[in-house]
């Protein structure tokens, strides 16, 4: 049994995990950089260890420091949260080799899904739909051009080692493809240390719909429902909701089956998310995120599950608490509140001089900020997540309007105003979403 969990993360997700551990009666260890000394996760955990300077490479991404912190604090398990080391198979292996429990998927599953070209090939072999494209890394520019001619432009070049929107180049015709091919390879080489790229048909205005999967390693792989995350800016999600306004019972069945097939293909265990692109009635596997996600609360709200608690249960060797896909109740929407200028999107670090949090029925706020907290400039700009729930999408939107009005953050610029503007958009209200929604939104400003 796990008795003390080290949380290899910071911010709201560290607090979210601490809350679940406390509820489960498990002690917690916070690790932090010098810049996060006054962070709430440090204060809320039972123990804390400073593991390095502000720069994440030397602290939150420093495997030796995290393991040493687990050793000196007597932790027997590590929860990686999201980002940082969460999808680092090498780290997961070291955690296990050190005799610690890794609260996440098997390292082999992380590795299999981390190589995007391999993931595409693996799930495709199980009958999961993928976009037309290459199943192997492309060896030459001519191969890329030949394939693009076959499937039709536009096409997108993706780094095998990329993901999360990084390492991608779009080509609209043969001239562009010839031009970007080598650039994409050298970018991939520089960013990920591996120059392999593969090619797919590019959808100009798809919807991003993902399926939350939970697997307990005892043969139970459950898809617990979808989320729509089409409202994105530069591939960064801004608003996520469950259920998707475009998914009906028949489509949900097909997507959930595809998601569990994809997870089962790599022997998945713990919480994970299979991301799909949806276009004109069809959906295509994009990638699998082998970790808990930022937007997990919307699924929690419509299913009544506590996904972090399920992760703890699974890591302890227990079966999932549910046997079949839960019933979806109502509609939940999450708004990511970033410390950034709502017009220019420039980061806005600084001190929180004033803070009032929204509350009331159907309102949840996951955050690590407090009055007097200084947002350090070194990390992600996410400072809070507002999650609302209503009987249906319309009710959830109405509730969101009220909650955003009640959400006061002084001292830094935030994306609250941007969310308020999005909630006035006819397309958003009607559920006409796509990943290019924010482009049009920006152009209209």
């Amino acid at each position, binding site marked *: 049994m796990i008795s003390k969990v080290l949380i290899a993360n910071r911010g709201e997700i560290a607090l979210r995990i601490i809350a679940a551990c406390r509820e489960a009666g498990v002690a917690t260890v*916070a690790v*932090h950089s*010098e810049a996060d*000394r*006054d962070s709430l996760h*440090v*204060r*809320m*955990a*039972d*123990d*804390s*260890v*400073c*593991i*390095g*300077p502000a720069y994440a490479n030397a*602290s939150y991404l420093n495997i*030796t*420091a995290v*393991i*040493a*912190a687990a*050793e*000196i*604090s*007597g932790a027997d398990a590590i929860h990686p949260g999201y980002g940082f080391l969460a999808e680092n198979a090498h780290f997961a292996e070291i955690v296990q080799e*050190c005799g610690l429990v890794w609260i996440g998927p098997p390292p082999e599953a992380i590795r299999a899904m981390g190589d995007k070209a391999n993931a595409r090939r693996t799930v495709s072999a199980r009958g999961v739909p993928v976009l037309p494209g290459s199943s192997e890394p492309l060896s030459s520019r001519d191969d890329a051009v030949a394939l693009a001619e076959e499937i039709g432009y536009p096409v997108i070049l993706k780094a095998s080692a990329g993901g999360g929107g990084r390492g991608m180049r779009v080509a609209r015709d043969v001239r562009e493809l010839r031009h970007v091919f080598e650039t994409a390879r050298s970018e991939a080489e520089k960013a990920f240390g591996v120059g392999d790229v593969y090619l797919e048909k590019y959808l100009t205005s798809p919807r991003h719909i993902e399926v939350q999967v939970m697997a307990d390693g005892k043969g139970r792989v459950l898809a617990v429902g979808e989320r729509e995350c089409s409202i994105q800016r530069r591939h960064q999600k801004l608003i996520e909701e469950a259920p998707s306004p475009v998914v009906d019972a028949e489509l949900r069945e097909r997507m959930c089956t595809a998601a569990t097939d994809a997870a089962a293909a790599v022997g998945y265990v713990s919480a994970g998310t299979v991301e799909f692109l949806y276009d004109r009635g069809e959906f295509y596997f994009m990638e699998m995120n082998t970790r808990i996600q930022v937007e997990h609360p919307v699924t929690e709200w419509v299913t009544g599950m506590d996904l972090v608690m399920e992760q703890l249960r699974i890591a302890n060797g227990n079966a999932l608490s549910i046997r079949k896909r839960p019933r979806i109740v109502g509609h939940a929407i999450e708004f990511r509140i970033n410390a950034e200028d709502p017009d220019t999107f420039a980061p806005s670090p600084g001190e929180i001089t004033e*803070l009032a*949090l929204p509350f009331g029925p159907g309102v949840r706020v996951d955050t690590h900020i*407090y*009055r*007097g907290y200084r947002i350090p400039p070194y990390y992600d700009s996410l400072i809070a997540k507002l999650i609302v729930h209503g009987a249906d999408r319309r009710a959830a939107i109405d509730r969101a309007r009220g909650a955003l009005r009640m959400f006061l953050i002084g001292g830094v610029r935030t994306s609250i105003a941007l969310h308020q503007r999005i909630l006035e958009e006819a397309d958003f209200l009607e559920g006409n979403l796509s990943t290019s929604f924010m482009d049009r939104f920006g152009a209209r400003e």
Partner: protein
Amino acid sequence: MFTFAELCELIRIVSETRVGGLEVERDGMRVHIDGVPAAPVLEARGGAPLLPPQLAVPGQLSGNPIALPGGASAPAPAAPATPAEEEGLSFVTSPIVGTFYVAPSPDSEPYVKPGDHVSKGQVLCIVEAMKLMNEIEADVSGVVVRRYPENAQPVEFGERLFAVRAT
């Protein structure tokens, strides 16, 4: 060992009396609490102070690093000490999180003892992380005034290991 409640009580006393600091020793464990006079107190949402006086428990972690609820984690390497005490001192801090050792092996003599003269670049101690022994060197020449952690004690990144008076 001090109980958790006792530590909280000590902090409360330092905080309320606004004395410069307090040092208590019992059963080989020494707790040092620095008071921060007129430090700005941040209000929690409930109105309770979030930050008590800065805590310093130099080199006195027992089995686990100590994090006091509602407070800064201990030790606070940057904890301000009285200027008179620190004048002319140079502090060697731990570049990594790990376990502190005074000697290369349990049977060996310590690399240095308080009072020893050390030269820049001389090995002062070892901090072990993931079975790797990292030798920590003096960054100035001078006399070792103080060693903070006990042998085999866990140290955090940035924690003070030695005070050296440069010569």
